[in-house]
């Protein structure tokens, strides 16, 4: 990709950024402002909010995040391989099979140890 082609990526990012920002700004500019205590409450589907948003997460999220990182890295390795797939021989398929198999071993381990159970 040359730099010019990245202009589209840049435009896409801009559009994505504007999608939430523009309505917020429009609301800010156009809406009449007559606050009262009920209106000023934080909106959460009509339900009263409970406590602070700054809560402590459960430690189990972390295991999932860690497992996710490992497989995310694997995905990044897979991507260029998949792009080059047509130009590669059978040997490359075998190699990737080894690569994935090693991670499957890790996955089996994780699974058997119960790290994927939500308790």
């Amino acid at each position, binding site marked *: 990709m040359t730099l010019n082609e990245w202009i589209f990526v840049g435009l896409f990012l801009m559009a994505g950024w504007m999608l939430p920002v523009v309505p917020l700004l429009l609301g800010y500019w156009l809406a009449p402002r007559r606050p009262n205590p009920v209106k000023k409450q934080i909106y959460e589907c009509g339900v009263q909010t409970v406590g602070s948003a700054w809560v402590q997460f459960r430690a189990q999220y972390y295991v999932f995040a860690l497992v996710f990182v490992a497989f995310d890295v694997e995905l990044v390795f897979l991507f260029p391989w998949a792009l080059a797939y047509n130009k*590669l*021989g*059978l040997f490359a398929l075998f190699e990737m099979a080894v690569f994935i198999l*090693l991670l499957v*071993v890790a996955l*089996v*381990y994780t699974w*058997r*140890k119960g790290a994927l159970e939500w308790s």
Partner: protein
Amino acid sequence: MFEVPGLGDLNVAATLPVTSLVLGTCILLIVDLFVPTDRKHITAWLAALGIGVLLVLALLALGEITEFGDGEEAFSGMFVADAFTDMINVIALITALLGVMVAYNYLERTGIQRGEYYVLLLFATAGVMFMGAAGDLVVVFVALELLSIPLYILSGFRRPQEASEESALKYFLLGAFASGFLVYGIALIYGATGTTNLHDIWQAAGDIVAGHKSGRFLLLGGAGLALVGLGFKVAAVPFHMWTPDVYQGAPTPVVAYMSVAAKAGGFAAMARVLASGLSNFALDPGEAAVWQDTVWLLAILTMLLGNVVAIVQTDLKRLLAYSSIAHAGYILIAVAAAGTAAVADEAVQSVAIYLMAYALTNVGAFAVIVAVERDDATNTGLDSMRGLANARPWLAAAMALFMFSLTGIPLTAGFVGKWFVFKAALAADLIPAAVVGVVTSLVSAFYYLRIVWLMYFEESEVEVSTPWPLAWAIGVASVGTLLLGMLPYILTDMVREITLAFGG
């Protein structure tokens, strides 16, 4: 579409020791899942058996009785299978075997018997072996991480014990930081030479030096940063800060293994990168390599700090931590000597000799600490040695032998190691480093022999547990220490073929 290479072209057979270790480890990981918690001795046995078989193969390869693959290169120079590789393989596997034997009963009695221990230990061993065989900076880095990550985890193996957790965290944070230095160094070296292959780097460095190209500053920066990263792994001053805390907090069998494995891996990589890839990198053609001065200065600092601070330690694990810093200093002298082209081979051989001697001695010394340590990780103070000779004469004799060897008293392996290191230093005209080495060895006698004094000339109640695997580990280590000390030609024969410098 590239040619589909045959396995013969890749010379996969040359990588057999390490690849079969990796394969076996993966199988062990799966097998261990089906081993019930109260029968983890099966995992330990399988691990020990696997290491044993590979050790025999590695010894055969070292003795040139069998040959894996043909030629010294595999994967087009990524993997180097020369005499140095064979030697590091043997050191790594001996350490791993002793590590399993030392750990088994300790894990049992402290209630942390888990199969992962052995799997991680084997992964770390594979990391050491890859480092010894690295022909490319990328392999050096991946191998370093493969060595380090299991060690971080093993340090925290006694979770939720606080000291163990603290040790793992400190090791991990500082270790990750040091890896960053290494990667940055690799990037700069790549920037200067346009390659990560050590042989190509050697060629490019020759051109850069001959042509006085400005790339040499970049290469200098890269070599410096790589030295920082590897210096951390081997605990060289001033990158040693983590060592005492990590050694004190981590489970003792882990320290027994780690103190040797991390050093073997780190120095193997240092030898490959400096003495091989950057061996001709001098600021002017024909001079000694530019990193030589830095390395011997580091060596002097390391020996001084390690030995002097060790004197005031009252905890055995901490004392041996400073002692291990000091020993990194002695090996660094040999690495520095490798910067002089004429003595490069001799210097690298002395690195290998020292590592072998240190492996047996140090694992043995930590194994004795494992024997006296209580289940709650206490009783590792100097006092625990008091009166050991009366209660357990053989154990005390072994410990005395290890202490003599660490001091470098003749007829022990440690003496042989120091002898060749100092010899290489003198041959390379590094006289200050050699003098400091000899003087600090004398200083070290003070704290090593104090332990011997406590064992033989003081009285106290002792409680010791030496189940048979531990006893055997201590036995093997002490016999090895004595044998290599009395018959040094075994060691010199082992390393005779080692030559790391590229083609003349």
